[in-house]
């Protein structure tokens, strides 16, 4: 039973446009959410995170939105760049030092 779900295996976006990656979760005890980016042959790289006490966190081109009532979060990338092409993983945890529960990932392709 998946606690973190990324229902879109892939997403294709034109360079300069907005990329929106979605993530749903089932466990209401999750209190911290993270997005990781992964290139082939590399480990996941931390991108941005959000605590459950917030509904938005922004870092440059990346913004994460959290809707606790819907148990949904999304990652917005504006503007998208070809270098953003990678697999994006949504992850959640309970407590500050708990283990991460990952979704299956969404492969983003940004076309020039």
């Amino acid at each position, binding site marked *: 039973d998946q606690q973190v779900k990324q229902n879109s295996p892939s997403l294709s976006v034109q360079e300069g446009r907005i990329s929106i990656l979605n993530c749903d979760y089932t466990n209401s005890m999750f209190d911290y959410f*993270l997005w990781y980016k992964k290139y082939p042959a*590399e*480990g*996941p790289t931390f991108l941005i995170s959000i605590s459950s006490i917030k509904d938005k966190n922004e870092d440059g081109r990346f913004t994460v939105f959290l809707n606790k009532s819907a148990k949904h979060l999304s990652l917005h990338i504006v503007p998208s760049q070809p270098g953003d092409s990678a697999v994006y993983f949504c992850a959640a945890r309970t407590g500050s*030092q708990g*283990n*991460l529960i990952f979704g299956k*990932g969404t492969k983003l392709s940004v076309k020039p």
Partner: protein
Amino acid sequence: DAGVTQSPTHLIKTRGQHVTLRCSPISGHKSVSWYQQVLGQGPQFIFQYYEKEERGRGNFPDRFSARQFPNYSSELNVNALLLGDSALYLCASNGWSEKLFFGSGTQLSVL
């Protein structure tokens, strides 16, 4: 500063063999976690160690074991390898923040 380093990068074993994977955390990080990533899936938690003590264990059989050394490096051991153990094994470390920093992983192929 060096990131999380893992060795070896690739490994080929046959069924029934034993494997040891190694990880050095970022300097100053006392917590090390291990994750398994099967193709097409997200990373799945195996173990977490903090100050040489096991802090958490995922849903993996007893064939999987790990330990952490006084210098905070860590080993993951898998006994009696099965074909289904073929995966990318990721090590991650963290300090006081909630962020995990991952190494590049060890790609294990079991034939």
